[in-house]
């Protein structure tokens, strides 16, 4: 099962990287979302997959008879997802601002900070 997730994670990563390399800020953002998902999957898979029992205790804190899913990676993932959302939201705002500032989203044409002149 982990193998499937490993493959999926790798392919999602590849798609993300391809998008990030496209030179368009919006597509970079798309890539970022995909990459976050890929990494989340990777972490999830690395935490091992053990059936469908969620890490919830029974009434009175009773441990279920069977093994529960690994709770720790889930907590990490939750944190990571929310942080990822924050970063994404900022990046989106930045994209809008860049569009308003430059009139395009082609990253290679954003040369204000490093203009193409070198030493005078």
């Amino acid at each position: 099962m982990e193998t499937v997730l490993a493959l999926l994670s790798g392919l999602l990563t590849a798609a993300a990287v391809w998008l990030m390399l496209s030179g368009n800020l919006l597509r970079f953002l798309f890539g970022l979302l995909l990459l976050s998902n890929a990494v989340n999957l990777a972490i999830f898979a690395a935490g091992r997959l053990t059936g469908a029992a969620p890490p919830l205790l029974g009434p009175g804190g009773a441990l279920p008879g069977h093994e529960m899913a690994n709770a720790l990676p889930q907590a990490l993932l939750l944190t990571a997802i929310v942080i990822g959302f924050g970063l994404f939201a900022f990046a989106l705002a930045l994209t809008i601002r860049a569009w308003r500032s430059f009139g395009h989203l082609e990253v290679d044409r954003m040369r204000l900070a490093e203009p193409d002149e070198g030493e005078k």
Partner: protein
Amino acid sequence: MTPTDFLAICLNTGLGLIALSIALGFVRLWRGPELADRVVALDMMTSAIIGFCGLFAVRAQVEGYLDIAVALALVSFVSVVALARYAGRLARRSDQND
């Protein structure tokens, strides 16, 4: 066949059908052609996932999955509203490029 076996088969079939319907919904999502078509597909997929959660709650015997369903039902509405607003504005705009 015991009722339990029957339930297991039905659940698995149901889950499979729902997954299939999500996949089919995805085809519409891909094809479009308009924004509204995609939103419709997304909405349909969301409904299917709500169903998925419901059946999964049965399979895992965990009520917790129903919470996903409730949350999803609420939140998917927000996304439909947002996208529909977008679609509405797009429709009133001169260029039709989405």
